[in-house]
């Protein structure tokens, strides 16, 4: 498994984008944080001005467990972006969180078992520092 650090080296997010700053700040200190509606408690993912549950606009970044289940995955063999040559194949995946399965995260998948992958497999977040500003939340099969 190529490390997430190498794969993402040329395609890193902007840690200063205000919409996602809290997300990257959480990852840097080893916490997965998502915006949650203060009115109804629903996670607002991806971040948006209006809560998908009640339309409320008051959201608080909230730490979640980082445990989840494999929703789907793709083993990528072709370097679709510059910088991925020599780094394929890798497994990218969607994970649904135990905290609320309506929340899905795109992530790299690590520790893929020899017996292969199945949807619904338990996964847990792990943090891979890329540089002093950005740490990527990847998920491991557990």
């Amino acid at each position, binding site marked *: 498994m190529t490390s*997430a650090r190498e*794969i*993402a080296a040329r*395609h*890193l*997010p*902007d840690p200063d*984008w205000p*919409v*996602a700053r809290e997300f990257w700040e959480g990852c840097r200190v080893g916490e997965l944080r998502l915006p949650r509606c203060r009115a109804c408690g629903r996670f607002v*993912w*991806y*971040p948006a001005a209006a809560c998908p549950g009640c339309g409320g606009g008051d959201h608080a970044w909230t730490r979640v467990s980082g445990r989840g289940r494999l*929703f*789907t*995955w*793709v*083993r*990528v*063999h*072709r370097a*679709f*972006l510059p910088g*991925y040559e020599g780094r394929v194949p*890798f497994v*990218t995946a*969607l994970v649904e969180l135990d905290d609320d399965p*309506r929340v*899905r*995260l*795109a*992530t*790299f998948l690590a520790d893929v078992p020899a017996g292969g992958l*199945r*949807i619904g497999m338990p996964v847990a977040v792990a943090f891979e520092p890329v540089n002093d500003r950005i740490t*990527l939340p*990847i998920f491991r099969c557990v």
Partner: protein
Amino acid sequence: MDLSRRIAIVGIGETRYERRADRPLMTLLLDASRAALADAGLAARDVDGIIAPGTTYQELHEIARELGVRQQFFTASGYSGGAAVASAPLLAALAIEAGLARTVLCCRGLAWGSERHGNVGQLHAEMPMKATFEIPFGWYPQAVYFAGMARRHMELYGTTEAQLGTIAVAFRRHAALSDNALLRDRPLTLEQYLAEPYLAEPFRVSDCCLVNDGAGAFVMTARERARDLRQPPVVVLGVGAGVSEDGEYASLRPDYLATAAVHSAPQAFAMAGLAPADVDFVTLYDNFTSMVIQQLEDMGFCRRGEGGPFVEGGRIALGGALPVNPSGGQLAQAFMLSMNNVCESVRQLRRAAGPRQIPDAEVGLVAGYSGSEHATLLLGRDR
């Protein structure tokens, strides 16, 4: 306002489809538009409505000026991508019924072969949420988005790679019967398909649509007027358009495997007073093989999860019970955001499709898709 059977498609035009054209996109759009008007036996002075999805303000008026449309004309834009092409008859029917236009031209061209240099995901990379929460994790581009759906479909319902391959093989056979298909001379067997290396599992190169240059156009007018024109009218029986929750972020969609065809198809069938069993052939938005399965399910041709077995046994090939994409579609003819599918459906219903002709074709369905949008268009012979 009842819009069923009020307007007809009276002219179609297509350029040659090419990997890279030797002339600019504007020339392709004008060539296709002129061909569609000539096919209808109409002239630019007859056009008082122009729907040109994907064009800028400047391009729209350049089309009008170059064609010679000097009079006042109605214009409208709405849905995007393939949904724009398949829903253009909805806008045209509204305009014609409201007395805002009599003759509406819809044209759509693409020069991704020349312009995108293999970087077809650029539009997605420009979206901040995708650039932040997806691309840094390798979830990019379209081949990955749709492979994710295909994988989940396979896991939940037992859909197989051979079933995906059956779709690619059928459309390639259809393209071999077309004189304007990019992969006309590139036959494909299931064995060859299965031997191709993966791009993004479960997709191989033959699961993915083409990248090319070209343009197409069609002309619409009131059904009564259509009867006086050169070609047999192809009547707009019904048309519907819908959108998915969570917009462009397919990874978040509550019903991950549903396209907005679950909204557009019931609208179109209700307007037409028809059901899937009444349809003789369909032209689907085949950006990837698995989308044929997803749309057949979403539109009610089979139940969710049954799309894999449904495409087996020759059912979707010419000669089968429900031929799909008889000109080769976007997998084997050209990626034209369903414009090629509209033109082929009209040819089939005119009974002018030559070696691809579906005997006794009375009702055809055209689907157009654009991420969060889907349009369903039901066309039929004038009766």
